[in-house]
């Protein structure tokens, strides 16, 4: 890709998706987009960039989808999900006892492992949730990835990265050389196409937001914008999960880390389910 095309491309991609590319990422762009060149019988990146400059939506969509990183696995890092099951969920069950509704958002859900992990955890806790309306909304910017997530079909490799064997036995069926998560679990998750640069209030208001391992791809300004928009789409005493290498500190004043656990945040100055430090609550 020529330097001026790369400059155009990186600005276009950031404006559309928030993804930041340094000039050292030229190899990444070429390796991700070469399959599309072949698919469209384009001889060079010049033609592709020309289509982007013209605003060809079909090309823009496939190119931006191809540039996204879709690495995900079940029970990723395990601890956030243990915390969700053992601490966050009981607190929300107490705080929402009158309303008996729970809304969870898995933002940038990739191929669905995160929302399905949450759905399996909630299914395991079904006795406590009898009579509750529980919604898991899972979003991703890439349409093809959302379709894959919705199908809930995984390779042998994918079901072995983090998924306990008991969960595989309980919630998956073997389909040839793939494994499909049960219709029951699939039915607990609503998948939607959504760009984190948009206003998430169109999705409603959430008690828990998982936005893990996404902000790492954005610059500081974009991170702040995403976090501020998420804050406006959360219940005042809701919980935000970020990835292990991500933080709100120095980026967004709306959230503060919840003492006692890494990676979980509450809205600043709010009272309720997220107001008591986790370790203090555990001792009490």
């Amino acid at each position, binding site marked *: 890709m020529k330097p001026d095309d790369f400059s155009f491309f990186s600005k276009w991609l950031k404006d559309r998706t928030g993804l930041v590319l340094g000039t050292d990422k030229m190899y990444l762009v070429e390796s991700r987009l070469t399959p599309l060149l072949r698919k469209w019988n384009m001889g060079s990146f010049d033609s592709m960039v020309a289509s982007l400059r013209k605003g060809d939506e079909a090309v823009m969509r496939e190119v931006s989808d191809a540039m996204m990183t879709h690495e995900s696995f079940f029970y990723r890092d395990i601890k956030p999900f243990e915390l969700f099951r053992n601490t966050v969920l009981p607190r929300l069950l107490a705080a929402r006892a009158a309303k008996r509704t729970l809304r969870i958002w898995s933002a940038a859900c990739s191929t669905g492992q995160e929302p399905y992990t949450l759905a399996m955890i909630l299914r395991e806790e079904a006795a406590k949730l009898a009579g509750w309306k529980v919604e898991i909304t899972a979003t991703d910017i890439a349409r093809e990835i959302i379709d894959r997530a919705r199908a809930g079909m995984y390779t*042998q490799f994918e079901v*072995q*990265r*983090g998924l306990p*064997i008991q969960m595989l*036995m309980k919630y998956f069926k073997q389909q040839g050389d793939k494994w499909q998560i049960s219709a029951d679990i699939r039915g607990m998750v609503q998948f939607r196409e959504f760009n984190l640069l948009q206003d998430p209030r169109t999705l409603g208001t959430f008690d828990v937001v998982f936005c893990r391992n996404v902000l790492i791809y954005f610059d500081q300004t974009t991170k702040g914008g995403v976090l501020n928009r998420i804050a406006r789409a959360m219940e005042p005493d809701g919980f935000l999960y970020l990835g292990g290498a991500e933080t709100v500190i120095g980026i967004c004043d709306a959230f503060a880390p919840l003492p006692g656990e890494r990676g979980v945040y509450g809205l600043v100055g709010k009272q309720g389910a997220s107001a008591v430090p986790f370790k203090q609550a555990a001792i009490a």
Partner: protein
Amino acid sequence: MKTCLVVDDSKVIRMVARRILEGLNFSIAEAADGQKAVEACEKQMPDAVLLDWNMPVMSGIDFLRKLRTMRGGERPVVVFCTTENDMAHITEAIGAGANEYIMKPFDSDIIQAKFSQVGLL
């Protein structure tokens, strides 16, 4: 340092598993079939067993059943690692007392993930 007995009739698989598990700070012993694994456990019960299914002399599932009746044999965490990758075999293995199940081919990420899940890391 935790100990892991790698049981597989393939020398190559034992070597690959040894390399991965030594990288995870395990001390490794090896056995080429279920009978040799029983003898190894009689001498010293390991903390973990990485276990193939199809082997000469004694299969992995027969070894597992024998292990769980041995003195101290309830203690090792047993992770199957086999090309038997269907639900019937998985169910049989878990029913016989296996703690986790790896479907070959495997890599270091899968070994690490599975050993973490069962509290070995």
